[in-house]
């Protein structure tokens, strides 16, 4: 089983559009959405949820008002500004309370409270879904609002997806990655066979592509670049190609900007299933090239064939 991760650094470059189309083209794939903060792949693949699992992760502190003597020790020791002072109308201290959003569950307050007024509570941080789509099983998740530990939830999504792929003998695991270069991206990259970096020819896009490229290289993952909206700025497209050449990273394809993609989004359909034009053809070619990297498919020759 080969794992293909679609990432970009910058948001909104077309990761999910591309992932959904690769999902539709791959035969025998398991799909995973690792953008657990703001997942969108379900809007194009319409998974039917088969199984829901609660994601418990970390803890948060809570103060027992009966026990608390307002000594303020927790307030002075907390490094996450999670202990709040609630005041009476006259400005005097009413009580201390934990801000569950700011609390990182470090337990310093719990261990140091002189009157044992603090308890630690397990934290329900999100939900994980195991689903079925037209194109194969899909694992996705929803991080609770304002929760942390997205990296751990990403790791769990990937683990479940791998288990399914192995149990069902699937050839591919196609993963929609999150934006950025932080914990959830690092968790997404673990064990991946190919990081497909979707770049756009804007100065921001180039900057962000280089950082995510550095990250893939840092973790020793094979990276290839796909340029989206290449006709927005040809100079920048050429700059991307030059950077990639210099760094020995292949540009594996490119797409012009197209309103067809917007229409496919609104229709809620992967663009390769929505239309048969230039855009769809380019993505089919991309998929053939990915297959060829891993020796799974036909080597490209001359004229592109339609494959729908």
């Amino acid at each position, binding site marked *: 089983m080969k794992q293909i991760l679609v990432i970009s*650094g*910058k*948001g*909104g470059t077309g990761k*999910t559009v591309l992932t959904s189309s690769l999902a539709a083209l791959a035969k025998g794939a398991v799909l995973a959405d690792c953008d657990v*903060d*703001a997942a*969108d792949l379900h*809007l194009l693949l319409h998974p039917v949820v088969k199984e829901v699992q609660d994601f418990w992760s*970390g*803890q948060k502190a809570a103060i027992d008002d009966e026990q608390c003597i307002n000594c303020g020790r927790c307030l002075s*020791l907390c*490094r*996450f500004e999670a202990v709040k002072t609630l005041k009476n109308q006259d400005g005097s201290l009413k009580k201390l309370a934990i801000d569950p*959003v*700011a609390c*990182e*569950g*470090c*337990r*310093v307050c719990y*261990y*140091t409270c002189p009157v044992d007024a603090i308890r630690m509570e397990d934290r329900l941080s999100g939900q994980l879904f195991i689903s079925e789509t037209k194109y194969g099983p899909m694992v996705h998740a929803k*991080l609770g*609002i*304002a*929760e*942390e530990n*997205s990296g751990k939830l990403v790791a769990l999504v990937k683990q479940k997806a791998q288990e399914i792929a192995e149990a069902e003998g699937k050839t591919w695991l196609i993963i929609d990655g*999150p*934006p*950025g*270069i*932080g*914990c*959830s*991206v*690092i968790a997404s990259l673990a064990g991946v066979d190919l990081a497909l970096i979707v770049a*756009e*020819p*804007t*100065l*921001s*896009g180039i*900057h*962000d592509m280089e*950082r995510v490229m*550095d*990250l893939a290289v*840092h*973790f020793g993952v094979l990276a290839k670049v796909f340029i989206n*909206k290449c006709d*927005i*700025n040809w100079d*920048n497209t050429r700059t991307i190609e030059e950077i990639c050449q210099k760094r020995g990273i292949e540009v594996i394809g490119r797409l012009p*900007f197209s309103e067809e993609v*917007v229409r496919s*989004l*609104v229709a*809620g359909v992967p663009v390769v299933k929505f239309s048969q034009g230039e855009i769809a053809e380019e993505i089919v070619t991309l998929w053939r090239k990915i297959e060829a990297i891993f020796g799974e498919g036909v080597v490209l020759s001359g004229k592109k064939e339609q494959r729908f």
Partner: protein
Amino acid sequence: MIVSVASGKGGTGKTTVAVSLALSISEEEVQFLDCDVEEPNASIFLKPQIEEALPVSIPVPRIDQEKCNFCGKCAEVCAYHALAVLPGKVLVFPHLCHGCGGCSLLCPQGAITEVGREIGTMEIGRSGDIEFIQGKLNVGEAMPAPLIRAVKERARKSMNSTTLTIVDAPPGTSCPVIEAVKDSDFCILVTEPTPFGLNDLALAVEVLRKLGIPFGVVINRSGMGNDKVDFYCQENNIPILLRIPFDREIAVLYSQGIPIVQGKKEYMERFRGMMNRIQELLLI
């Protein structure tokens, strides 16, 4: 006043809106904080003169082998499994450490001190009259939140009662976003009129409601997809502050790193109008 710009979905135009707003307001002192420390882009548009670059570190434990008796207390109290105690040896995993200070505080032998581990850089400078501060997370670092905290703390030093502080937030709905938008007086949510834009806008709205921060919406690339974002805002009583049309010329300006208010001067007035609208909303 602190106005943050966030979005849920990435690539909707947070930086475009934040930069344009900063460049449109000239009456007050303006601070610009790029808190998208994983992928900071505002400097591409504001081209600040960086005057100072400071490493930002989080405190991680250092074990004094002379004093340590390998009792195991530090590993027991660490909620992040950043310490492991073996017979005659303590292992520290600095990448897992959140810097809470629990181990050094609770070590019975006083054998743990804290040393800084650099996670990124904070750059401070000026772009015209705008004070500019950005965080840049080192590649390979997982935790952006402490760097965002450092940027905001630095900004507080030069903030006064008339300063307008504009915070360019990262995408998403998890801890880095919270760190960036908390303490804001108002948050501008930038979205696009597509199913993705709507889905992620609704998530961002939940975050702001949870934090109790007033907010409004900017619809970027207006006219591109469908009307569902409009209906959603109407149904949920969310003010639409501004619409930026779906326009190839604007996309090209963006690609060149030119702020929309410089490429299309008429937008200056529209962004000022948006700021007035925000001030009115805060008075209600």
